[in-house]
């Protein structure tokens, strides 16, 4: 692939080098902690050391007496302002600062504002909190036991730890399919609690201007416009007096979608002191208190004919949502998109049932590039297909090939109601098998097994639904998920695009410039993308769930086409032709049949701004606005193959190869797409082999630092081998689908399938992630570990 600058490009899609890199390679990015305002104070949070305890008293007198402390905020103080609790995105409430009880280790109890960050930390040591310990609920499978401690006694009448029961699909039809099937296999599997752990932790700088009443909040936010509205609703501040700025963001992965107590405390701290307040959490705070991911205890069943025709799927899930239902997901379904669990297969019927419970753990659940639970769904079905292959003694590739949806079935409505837009699945799987040299790998595996060596080949085929989302299924606290875009074209023909989503590393400043450039026939270098500032950009719901290209990318294309149509009218006047006689070709409007007679956007923009008489319908300039309301999700898919070697003596897994063939429709910037896939694959390797947020029986978090919560490094990651197929999205203006989360969603199952395949000589059918050496070794002995209750 050849990456170029955008200079002189006409036809702007392709592997263009990123505009944003110029500042990052010089250390000139502006992350939240880089912001320094005159008179700025620093905040720090006192957190609960206990997982469940009643607060008897909080004594802040000594902290307040610290010479550098400017304010100490407690839940009691917030109660007076009706701010002790805040709404979550899942119709629950979450304590901002605890008043009655603490419900997980690391919960926010008090907030100190001081002159510098060291003094703020010092003052935390001076706060004396008396706790009365309560019994804890850590094992989700025991959360609904009779007599289990009730975590949410703040909710009137609450007698248990139950949050919701929810189901999708036709239960009777599914049960009938299962009753008649030749073969039914079942498997329990845990998708353990994980954490997105962006390298930059969460933080904020809040600045309330006491004269104008304007609140400016620089924040690690993946959704600045949504945050603005939420601040207005929660804090009863006028929305036009709130400006949220997401500056450079050091990775999001869903961790930076919610509003956290620290953000609100910084805002309140600024209001109380009249000075800017910075709060940046440390790594342990990030891992122990902010939005975790997964924690799904799943029981899956798959029904098939003896010949390997898959007929139906059933799943029952216990979902651990932690102490507050803070699941940051926009769907009307409490389990997010989990009911996409039928995957990429042609089934007769399917049914899933999900029960959500409270435990004494940090709130969250939807984060970490999961596409709102598609990750869990894909993992379930792809593990089940491999378990079925084992049962039928079938080749996992052939079994998948036999059951994948066929091109002529699209658009395809799944048994649980999803409307897949386009796909040519078998082709994509075949490309992956060819890239891998699948038959040769299987031969090598046979030879190695004879010698007692453990080699595994794992396949995963996934379908995602991304681009939230259609109003019938999605909203954020009642707000529909349409995204705006505005495009200004300057007299000299350069342009400024304002978008509502923003980059956390995805390269929006480049990709979105390419979208506009492609539509207007100008260079991407001549398009400046403005994002991440609610005062300067149109409303939209933010960057997560792989929605930027499907929704805001569509808005960018639509607004550019609006500009182009306005330009057509001006060009017609310039060319003394009817607008109907013009055609857009080669980056300019020209008279049909007379390509010599044409005008570029730059020429037209100057004319549109000129003192010349303008044609009817053009008041001057070419600027336009658009709002894109997605009619459906986009459905990217892919075929992944992992080759793993396992040391039978130690259980150590080494990934030798990873082949990933993604189909995300039209690729605007293939270099960026491939980079995102690389990153997602590393996430999958981490989840499959290393990462888990486990707890001990007292509710102590065992993954509270990078010493304990292990992330993949350059040593664990193989050199990724990518391929691609392109099946355009039929309903997206430029045929693109989202891709940012595809690899995170699709890859864990491929890694686990590879390891379990390697362990086939020992009769191992399943072991839960993470497949650490100890866990693999125990699986070889016939006793895989319960990975969520102790670090194996």
């Amino acid at each position, binding site marked *: *692939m*050849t*990456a*170029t*600058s*955008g*200079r*002189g490009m006409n036809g702007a899609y392709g592997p263009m*080098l*990123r*505009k944003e890199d*110029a*500042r990052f*390679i*010089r*250390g*000139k990015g*502006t992350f939240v*902690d*880089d912001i320094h305002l005159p008179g700025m104070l620093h905040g720090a949070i006192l957190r609960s050391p206990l997982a469940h305890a009643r607060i008897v008293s909080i004594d802040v007198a000594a902290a307040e007496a610290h010479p550098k402390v400017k304010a100490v905020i407690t839940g009691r103080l917030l109660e007076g302002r009706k701010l002790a609790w805040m709404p979550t995105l899942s119709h629950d409430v979450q304590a901002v600062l605890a008043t009655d009880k603490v419900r997980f280790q690391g919960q926010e109890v008090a907030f100190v504002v001081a002159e510098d*960050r*060291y003094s703020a930390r010092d003052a935390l040591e001076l706060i004396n909190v008396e706790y009365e310990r309560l019994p804890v609920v850590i094992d989700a499978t025991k959360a609904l036991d009779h007599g289990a401690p009730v975590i949410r006694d703040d909710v009137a009448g609450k007698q248990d730890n139950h949050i919701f029961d929810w189901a999708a699909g036709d239960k009777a039809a599914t049960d009938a399919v299962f009753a008649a099937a030749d073969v039914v296999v079942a498997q329990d599997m845990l998708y353990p609690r994980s954490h*997105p752990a*962006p*390298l*930059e932790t969460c933080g904020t700088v809040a600045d309330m201007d006491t004269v104008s009443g304007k609140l400016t909040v620089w924040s690690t936010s993946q959704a600045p416009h949504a945050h603005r509205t939420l601040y207005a609703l929660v804090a009863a501040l006028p929305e036009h007096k709130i400006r949220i700025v997401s500056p*450079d*963001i*050091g*990775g999001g992965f869903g961790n930076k979608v919610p509003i956290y107590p620290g953000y609100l405390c910084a805002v309140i701290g600024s209001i109380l002191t009249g000075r800017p307040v910075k709060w940046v959490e*440390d*790594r*342990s705070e990030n891992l122990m208190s902010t939005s975790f991911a997964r924690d799904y205890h799943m029981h899956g069943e798959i029904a098939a004919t003896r010949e390997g025709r898959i007929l139906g799927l059933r799943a029952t899930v216990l979902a651990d949502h932690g102490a507050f239902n803070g699941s940051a997901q926009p769907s009307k379904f409490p389990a997010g998109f989990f009911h996409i669990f039928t995957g990429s297969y042609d089934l007769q019927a399917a049914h899933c049932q999900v029960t959500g419970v409270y435990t004494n753990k940090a709130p969250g659940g939807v984060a970490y590039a999961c596409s709102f639970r598609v990750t869990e769904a894909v993992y379930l079905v792809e593990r089940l297909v491999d378990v079925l292959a084992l049962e039928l003694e079938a080749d996992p590739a052939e079994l998948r090939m036999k059951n994948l949806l066929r091109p002529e079935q699209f658009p395809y409505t799944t048994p649980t109601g999803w409307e897949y837009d386009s796909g040519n699945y078998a082709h994509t799987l075949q490309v992956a098998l060819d890239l891998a040299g699948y038959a040769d790998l299987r031969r090598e595996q046979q030879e190695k097994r004879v010698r007692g060596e453990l080699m595994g080949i794992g396949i995963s085929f996934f379908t995602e639904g991304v681009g939230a989302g259609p109003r019938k299924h999605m909203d954020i606290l009642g707000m529909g998920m349409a995204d705006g875009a505005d495009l200004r074209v300057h007299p000299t023909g350069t342009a400024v695009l304002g978008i509502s989503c923003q980059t956390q*590393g*995805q*390269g929006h400043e480049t990709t979105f410039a390419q979208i506009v450039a492609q539509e207007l026939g100008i260079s991407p270098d001549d398009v400046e993308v403005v994002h991440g500032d609610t005062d300067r950009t149109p409303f939209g719901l933010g960057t997560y769930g792989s929605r930027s290209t499907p929704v805001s990318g569509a808005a960018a294309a639509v607004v550019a086409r609006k500009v182009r149509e306005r330009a057509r009218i001006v060009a017609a006047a310039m060319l003394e032709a009817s607008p109907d006689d013009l055609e857009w070709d080669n980056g300019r409007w020209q008279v049909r049949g007379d390509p010599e007679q044409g005008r570029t956007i730059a020429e037209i923009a100057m004319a549109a701004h000129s003192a010349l008489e303008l044609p009817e319908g053009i008041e001057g300039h070419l600027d336009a606005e658009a709002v894109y309301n997605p009619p459906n999700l986009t459905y990217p898919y892919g075929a992944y193959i992992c080759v793993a070697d396992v040391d039978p003596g130690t259980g150590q897994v080494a990934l030798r190869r990873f082949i990933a063939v993604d189909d995300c429709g039209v690729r605007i910037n293939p*270099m*960026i797409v*491939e*980079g*995102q896939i*690389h*990153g*997602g*694959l*590393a996430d999958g390797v981490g989840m499959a082999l290393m990462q888990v947020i486990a707890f001990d029986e007292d509710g102590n978090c065992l993954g509270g*630092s*990078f*010493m304990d919560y292990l*992330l993949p*490094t*350059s*040593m664990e*990651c193989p*050199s*990724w*081998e*990518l*391929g*691609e197929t392109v099946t355009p999205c039929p309903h997206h203006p430029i045929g693109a689908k989202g891709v940012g989360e595809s690899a995170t969603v699709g890859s864990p199952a491929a890694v686990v399938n590879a390891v379990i395949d390697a362990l086939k000589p020992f009769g191992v059918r399943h072991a839960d992630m993470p497949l650490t050496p100890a866990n693999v070794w125990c699986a070889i002995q016939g006793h895989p570990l319960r990975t969520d209750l102790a670090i194996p």
Partner: protein
Amino acid sequence: MQITVNVNGAEYTREVEARLLLIHFLRDELRLTGSHWGCDTSNCGACVVWLDDTPVKSCTVLTAMADGHEVRTVEDLERDGVLDPIQQGFAECHGLQCGFCTPGMMLTARWLLDRVPDPSTEEIREALSGQICRCTGYENIVRSVRWAAEHADADQRLDHDSGEDGSNQAEHDGGPG
């Protein structure tokens, strides 16, 4: 206590608390915010700077330990408007996404290339193994370091706003895909 540190060629004499971490001295006192703080525990490497000629994790170095020593940060990689090849390599090979780990990665890679001018991919992975990137999956970082090794004398500027000579058109090794 009073300390004197040479940072990127300039002498700084400051009164600091004995407990002040070097990363906070660089970021909060000198406002050199290119070095980032990521984990507290020396695991992530976002804070890597050079202390004299050695990459260190400045979140676990006391400023006092740098008294009388030289510190080099990402801000010193570009000299007289000329990018270091490692900076150029990261841009050319899409070796960064969010950019948070990038300064530390580049400083370790620069140290490696000064000692091993033509490293293998295995040597690069080993050298960077104490640093975490959450975005790239490392492959393009490895390619970036290789690019820098292959363009040791490169003096091209990465500046999208200047010139029309197309000088930053470059080969990008997109891999097997």
